[in-house]
């Protein structure tokens, strides 16, 4: 875990059982997230992109523990020494053959894990830690309680956790709402009295009220009109500067994600297939899937004829994932090995990770001319 990492998710796995009964009975699973690892540095934005069903939203929900993972670790706002100690212990456990010593090691690891792994926090600790990890969802109409006044919505987590005494509630709410540009006259109003853009501002106010370190933004502007989107994106950028918060930013609109993110991870069938700084990913995408994705995005003023670039094909079923690389069927650069083995996410260029056998490694840029 590098020094400034705020969050490190390791090998996240989540499958949803296909509903029992009917023809689908028989323990089948939709493999939504299949071994996803990534870090988010402090005060930075990681964008997650990919088409519907690629696991973006499930990944976000796993971080929040809205759904519990089938496997994986989550280190959030932890001193690196502690997480490293756990990693060392687990490596030792992996090598240990003697059953008695294994039991001792397991106990030790278990104790350590409870202290550092977000996924093993119990309810009371989770409640406290969650203040540091907030969220903004797509539809502010659904995520704001229609029966609560705005001042209650915004300060509820603070009052609940005893961070703000009841008497100071209105003052605190007024302060936060001012940051997001909602006038103090709105304090006693209800969500339905606001427009969509204003409601999203209120969601943002609630998210930043407790000075979180990470805000997970799942399609925060996709339900908004184009002329309102830029207001909200600018607000998110201003808040990041002021509050030094990190964002995990999910959106299907690539132009939005590329604009707001420092780094971007591309997901396909529940896996990260490429990760790089935003500019680098746009200018030099390595993975054939990323290349396809960028080629089909309509770009203003680029005279790009996306109708010529489209290729047939759709992602495979998440219930029966094929062996090997899941992009094999659609890939223009596939090799024989791709059908049998799954490529790992490895560094192909400095700071640029990609999971593809067809992409050569070139970590040190050649200085020859």
């Amino acid at each position, binding site marked *: 875990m590098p020094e400034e990492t705020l969050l490190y998710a390791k090998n996240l796995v989540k499958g949803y059982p296909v509903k029992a009964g009917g023809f689908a009975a028989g323990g089948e699973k939709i493999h939504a997230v299949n071994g996803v690892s990534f870090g988010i540095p402090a005060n930075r934005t990681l964008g997650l992109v990919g088409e519907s069903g690629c696991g973006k939203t499930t990944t976000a929900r796993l971080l929040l523990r809205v759904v519990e993972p089938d496997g994986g670790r989550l280190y959030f706002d932890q001193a690196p020494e502690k997480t490293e100690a756990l990693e060392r212990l687990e490596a030792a456990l992996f090598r240990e053959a003697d059953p008695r010593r294994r039991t001792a090691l397991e106990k030790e690891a278990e104790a350590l894990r409870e202290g550092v792994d977000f996924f093993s926090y119990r309810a009371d600790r989770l409640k406290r830690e969650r203040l540091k990890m907030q969220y903004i969802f797509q539809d502010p109409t659904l995520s704001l309680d229609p029966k609560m006044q705005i001042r209650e919505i915004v300060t509820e987590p603070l009052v609940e956790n005893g961070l703000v005494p009841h008497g100071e509630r209105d003052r605190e709410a007024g302060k936060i709402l001012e940051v997001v540009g909602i006038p103090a006259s709105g304090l006693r109003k209800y969500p339905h009295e606001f427009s969509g853009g204003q409601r999203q501002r209120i969601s943002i106010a609630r998210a930043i009220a407790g000075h979180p370190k990470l805000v997970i933004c799942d399609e925060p502007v996709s339900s908004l009109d*184009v002329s309102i989107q830029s207001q909200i994106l600018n607000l998110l950028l201003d808040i990041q500067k002021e509050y030094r918060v990190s964002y995990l930013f999910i959106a299907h609109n690539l132009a939005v994600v590329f604009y707001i993110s420092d780094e971007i991870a591309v997901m396909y069938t529940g896996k990260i297939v490429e990760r790089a700084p935003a500019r680098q990913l746009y200018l030099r995408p390595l993975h054939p899937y990323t290349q396809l994705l960028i080629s089909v995005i309509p770009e203003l003023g680029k005279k790009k004829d996306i109708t010529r670039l489209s290729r047939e094909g759709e992602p495979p079923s998440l219930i029966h994932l094929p062996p090997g690389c899941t992009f094999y069927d659609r890939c223009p650069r596939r090799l024989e090995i791709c059908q049998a083995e799954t490529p790992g996410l490895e560094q192909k260029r400095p700071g640029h990770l990609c999971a593809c056998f067809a992409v050569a490694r070139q970590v040190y840029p050649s200085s020859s001319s």
Partner: protein
Amino acid sequence: MAEPILKVRDLTTRFRLVERTITAVAGVSFDVQENEILAIVGESGCGKSVTILSLMNLIQPPGFIDPASRVLFEGRNLLELEERELAAVRGGRIAMVFQEPSASFNLLFTVGAQIAEALRIHRGLSREKALEQARDLLRQVRIPAGERRARDYPFQLSGGMLQRSMIALALSCSPSLLLADEPTTALDATVQAQILALLKEKSSAGGMSVIFVTHDFALIDGFANRVIIMYAGRILECCSSREILEQPAHPYTQDLLKAIPRLGVFKDEQRLYSIAGRVPEPGNLPSGCTYAPRCRLRFGKCEVEPELLRAGGNGKKNHTVRCWLFA
């Protein structure tokens, strides 16, 4: 220029609510040329979908179309046709595709049977002949294993395949005009590109014109020939898709283009332009120019609503804009 295949004149659609009547589309006029893809772009509530529904006289009470409105297609005013005559036009000479393909199909019949039904009604084909052509159409829109897919029920197809089937259904009677209301909004980027390619191919090869409604400005580039920008039920600007991007005339169009994040522009390079305020509600429009309250260039004249004016300059004969700056 050849005679346009569709002429819309002063289309006005109102909705009678309990306490007042609101105007969703206010005096919209435009032409559609043969083989042309015309994009209607606007934010939610600007009247773009109501315009499309009005063209086919599909407005349900409490909505109604102002009797002075005219939609001229093949020499007839569609708004004056009997329901029976109009039904023959819908799905035949003029076809429609909507946003959510799963809502457009009947879930109790196979996709093939539903396409065949249109062929039997409009073309009078026999059941077998119609089914055969349905399978052929599914192949034409490049649905993998189209033969077999014709026997599938809508729930067995993915969103992209369903939208292609919808297009196969729309194309089944070789319409001369296709009305497409956000047909790719619910679809992924790669599938969207496939659908757009299909529409473009059919319009340039098959002698079909398309009215394409979208909120996504980026879509028009490289796809549409001409663009209409709608705002608060009015056309604010209309010109070729190249001109709208290179020389947008209306302040609203200019502001929107600066507010949309573009691929290849990053946060450390440029701050997005923030348009103040929000889209007015149809029942609560400002008097005068509808964009004036948000406009950075408004001046005295804007208290009165301008007509659609020439954007000026030679070679811009077909560029119209509703703004006093061009008076």
